[in-house]
Structure formats: structure tokens, C-alpha cells
């Protein structure tokens, strides 16, 4: 997280620290599901993608319940039973993060408490969360000024209208021909140094739903061009509710 602040204990109780192919983030759904970005499990462009999901589940480390990485490690990880990768995600296409969403089922439900609590999913009818300028918060254990963070930090960012994201991307196309699909949204600033960064992938972009008084995950940290050098791009959770519920409810 760049330009952010130290997260207080219990402010982002859904935040998970993942260790699969290096550091990532995730968010607790219910008491046994971790929502994250598919590329934290199957990174783009790495040959490692021929490892089986079971193998990855076996090796994955998931930590919950603290804002200090050192403390999280002391508390021990939560073993993963199964991993679900969205079928649209294509690890081979380095310029397309469409479908960058995954679910990990923990072997044992976690006991919730002040420092471990799940995030809500958005209500299917509520699209105001994706309107231009809607403020959201993203937390993560990712890089800040070239240093991996030992503490959970957060930053508040405004959602940016799709067309602004697209036009910004177009200006970058020459360098990096990235795909921007309707299953994504972008947030952040062009000039202000507040953004997410490597290691934050998989963490969720959350907004406070003033109607219900609840925090809702609207996006997943997915990709960006550099960090704090423009907008960040997030997986639009609203478009994957059926997929998520299909898996979580099926269970």
C-alpha cells in the first residue's frame, strides 16, 4: 500500500495474508472461505502453472487475525482444503486479467472475533459502489516504497469511471497493451501517490454501505502499471456473485 496508513487492529478483520507464490492478500467470506485474485495462485507468465490445484492447496499458507506479519506467522496458518479458480482466468495471457478471482476453502472454519471477521459481498442490485468517485478502502501487506510491509496498511481510493480508466489505459497502450474488461474497474489517482502495489494482490477493495452499515467488498486488487503511477485495476466482484455463491452455497 502506498500513501496509506497503518491499519488498526480490528479495522480490517477480513484481511488475510497469503503465501502461495510469494506474498498476497485475501478476504474472509463466511467463516471458511478466502476470496483472492486468481493470479496469486496461478501467476501470469510463470511456468509454475502446471502444478495441480491440490498441490497448491497443500502448500498454500493463509494467515488471519493480526496486522503484524510476524504475529500472523506466530499464530500459524489455516490449511486449505480446496482452491477454485474462475474458468475465465487465463494465466498465459499476460495482458488480460479478466476473471482474476479465486476462492480457497479452509479445511477448518475459523472462529470469528474482533480481529477475524468476514467481509460482505455486494448486493446484486447496488451498482452505486462502482460510480465515479465512490470512495473505497483497500488494505494489504504489500510493498511500500520498495519495501515489503511488516504491518497491514490501508489506503482510501476513489473509484474511477470506466471511460476514464479506458482512456488512461489507451494512453499507455503503446507501452503495455493491457485488456480492460467490464469485469474490472479502476480506482486511485493519476498523480496522488496513493495506490496498492505488489503483495497487495488478492486483497479486497471495500466500501461502507451506508444503508446497511456494513463494509462490502466491491473489488479485488488485480493489476496496475507500476505503483502510484496511475490507476490501479480491480476485479469487479459484482460480476462474479453467481460464481461465488454457486461455490460457497454448493458447499
Amino acid at each position, binding site marked *: 500500500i502506498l500513501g496509506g496508513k497503518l491499519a488498526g487492529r*480490528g*479495522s480490517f478483520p477480513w484481511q488475510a495474508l497469503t503465501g502461495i507464490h510469494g506474498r498476497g492478500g485475501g478476504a474472509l467470506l463466511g467463516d471458511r472461505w478466502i476470496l483472492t485474485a486468481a493470479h496469486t495462485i496461478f501467476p501470469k507468465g510463470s511456468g509454475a502453472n502446471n502444478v495441480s490445484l491440490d498441490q497448491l492447496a497443500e502448500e498454500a499458507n493463509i494467515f488471519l487475525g493480526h496486522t503484524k506479519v510476524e504475529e500472523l506467522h506466530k499464530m500459524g496458518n489455516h490449511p486449505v482444503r480446496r482452491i477454485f479458480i474462475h474458468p475465465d482466468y487465463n494465466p498465459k495471457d499476460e495482458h488480460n486479467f479478466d476473471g482474476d478471482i479465486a476462492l480457497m476453502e479452509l479445511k477448518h472454519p475459523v472462529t470469528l472475533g474482533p480481529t477475524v471477521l468476514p467481509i460482505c459481498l455486494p448486493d446484486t442490485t447496488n451498482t452505486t459502489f462502482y460510480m465515479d468517485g465512490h470512495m473505497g478502502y483497500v488494505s494489504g501487506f504489500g510493498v511500500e516504497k520498495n519495501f515489503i510491509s511488516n504491518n497491514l496498511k490501508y489506503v482510501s481510493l476513489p473509484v474511477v469511471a470506466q471511460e476514464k480508466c479506458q482512456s488512461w489505459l489507451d494512453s499507455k497502450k503503446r507501452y503495455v497493451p493491457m485488456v480492460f474488461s467490464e469485469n474490472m474497474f479502476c480506482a486511485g489517482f493519476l498523480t496522488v501517490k496513493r495506490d496498492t502495489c505488489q503483495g497487495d494482490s488478492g486483497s479486497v477493495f471495500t466500501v461502507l454501505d451506508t444503508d446497511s452499515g456494513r463494509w462490502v467488498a466491491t473489488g479485488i486488487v488485480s493489476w496496475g502499471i507500476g505503483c502510484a503511477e496511475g490507476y490501479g485495476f480491480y476485479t469487479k466482484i459484482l460480476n462474479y456473485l453467481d460464481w461465488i455463491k454457486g461455490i460457497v452455497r454448493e458447499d
Partner: protein
Amino acid sequence: SSPAPRNLFGEIRSPGYPKPYPNNNISIWDIRIPKGYVVKLTFRYFDLEPSESCFYDYVKIKADKKNLGRYCGQLGSATGNHPGRKEFVSKGNRMQLAFRSDFSNEDNGTVIPYRGFLAYYQALDLDECDPNNADEEDERPQCQHFCHNYVGGYFCSCRTGYQLQSDHHSCKVECSSELFTEASGYLSSPEYPEPYPEDLQCNYSIRLPKGMSIILKFLKPFEIDDHQQVHCPYDQLKIQARGREIGEFCGKESPGSIETNSNEVDILFFTDESGFSRGWKIRYTSEKIRCPQPVPRDRFTVIRDLQSVYRFQDYFVVSCKTGYNLVEGNRKLLSFTAVCQADGTWHQSMPRCEIVKCGNPTELTNGAFSYVNKPANNNYQSVITYRCNEPYYHIVTGTGGDTFTCSPDGTWEDRDGQVRIPACLPVCGKPLHPVTEVQR
């Protein structure tokens, strides 16, 4: 003469009947039937020469050494003695018929073809027990106590406490093994209410089916020799039930009524060589033996259709009030019935009712339950409420809500009778310390 065969009935006809009988004929018939019967004879047809006092032809009937008459003539004839429909009955088992005809049957030179007679006899039972039938010379003694007639004979019997002697008529006190098996009856000292004989060793046994209880009721007068100071030194009336002595009685004070609670009672009556007391008489009755009135062991026990009295083969069914289980020892019973046995005891003892225990309520993951009422136990009607570890979880219940009661069948049930406990579902999006920006 031709003795009639010894059958029980027959016909006797005059010689040549129905043709006219011969002159100068004397015929005699001896009717002899088995003992225990008397002869009854009637004339079906009678047609003899009439004459004054039946001087010429006649039929003469004799029985029991008596003459029963001399008969002749025709029906309605002025002279003679026609028997008509008269029935001749002997007292004994014999009768004799004699027929005589003289040398002619002429009247003014005309021969009258008198045809004689057709007589019919039959054996009638002799009621030897009817005193009027007692024949003076009858060698048979009368029954001393009871006479029982039957067709063709009779037999004697004796009062209770007496035995018929070998002469089949006289009765001698014999009460050493009187057995009574009827549901009710009478027994008394010999000769009651006349003074009882001396030197008696009477044993009256009443034996009824198991499960019956004999009740003895002494009738008046009650009188057994006694002594002012010493208890029954002369004559004793002992009552035993199944070998257990119930009492020894004498004197003039009646024992009244005794409920023996036994289906076997022995009444022993011993007398010495003297005395003029009039003895005793008992009417015994019986009823099914009673069992003790069932009494519940606790206030949760319900005896169904409680009866005021329970007797042999009666039974009672016990159940418990709702929320209580029938328990025998440590065993839970689905039902309980006790049957009154032949010895007046219940075939199994009263169980007790133990409150239904529901056991520890199911633990609620990420929640807990608390007891609503005191004392906090898992007994019937205990109430618990489930709560989740708020604010991290919120409770999801069935339509029956989050309060569960220990039900009569031992399960914790919600308002709708459902046993499924609530669930604690994660509360999402409610951090305890949400980010709050201050500076603007």
C-alpha cells in the same frame, strides 16, 4: 301259571283272547319287576261273565299280600264288578293276577261268548324317599339323613360331617376329612344346632382355586365348651389358613366374620368326652383375594382408572405425568402394569416417575446457550436460550425461535417442536474498529 318276564312292562291276556275264554280255566300270572319299582296295572279290555260278587268267572288281583279286588262283568252290566279304568298299583315290585272261569257261560240256555280281558302293566319308579311309600315290613331301614330317589332305586347320604355307613343308610359322624370346593357353602359342627357329639376329631378343608380369599362368617348360636380361666381346655375350634393358625375359638362369643386372605382354609374341631354345647355353624363365602391398594411413590405417578378395590387378576396401569418417565431401578420403562396375584400381592412393585432429562443441550458452534429458569438443569421444562457470539456471529433460527425447552420426550425443542438448533452465521462487514477519518 306263567311268571311274567322281568321286564318293565307288558300285556296279560285271558286265555284265547280276543276269542272267548274257555270254561273251567284257572290261570295265574305273577308279575315281578326289578326292585325300586312298583307295578301299575290297568285293563285295556274287560269282558267276563257277570255274577253277584263275581261268583262264577272272575279276575282276582293281589299285591303286597293284599287282595286288590275281584272283578267280573261287562262295562255297565248291572251285576258284577267291572274294573273300568282303575289303576292297580302295588307297593312292592310284585303283583299277581288270577283268572277263573266256571263250567259255563250260559244265560237261559244261551252261551254268551265273553271274551275275557287284556291287561297292561308297567313298572313305575318307587320313590323310596317318600315316607308314605315306606312299607311297614320293609326290611330296608330309612335313610338316617338324606334320601335321594332315582328311577329304579334310591340312595342315602349324610349331612356334612357325617359319613354313610356300610349299611348305606345310617350316618356316623365322620368329619375328619370334609372337603369343600364350592365358592360358598355351609359347614357346622355335627348335629348343629343340637349339641355336638363327644370325641370328635373334625377337619373341614375348604380348597378354592388360587387367587380366591375365603371369608368365614359364624352364624348364631355359637357355643363351644370353655373355661373361665383356661383358654379352651375342653373343646377347640381352630382355624388355619395355609398352615398359619388364624385363631382358636370356644365359649359363647362368636368370632363373627373372618377374612382369611387365603384360598385354603382348614377348620379343626376337637371335642372331649362330654359337653352339651350346641356347637357352631359357618357360612363361608369367597371372593377374589384382595391386593393392597396401589399407592404412587411420588406425585408424578398416575394410576389409570384407580379402583377402590383390587382383587386377584385385577391390574392397574401406571403412567407418569407429562415430562416424567417410568423407572424401575435404573431401567426406564415404556409402560407399567401390575397384576394382582393369587397370593394377594402385586406381581411387580410400584415404579417411580423420574423427571425426563434432556441431557446437555447441543453446543452451539460460535455461540452458547444459557438457562432461563432456575435451577439450571436439563430436566423437563427447563428452558435455554441460544445466543451467538455477537457481534461476530448472528443467530439464524427456525420458525420456532432461539428458545428451547426440554420436552417430554427428552429432547430440546423450540416453540415449533423442532429439535434443530440455531446456527451462528458470520456477521460480515462489521469491524469493531472501522476506519474513521477525522481530519478533513
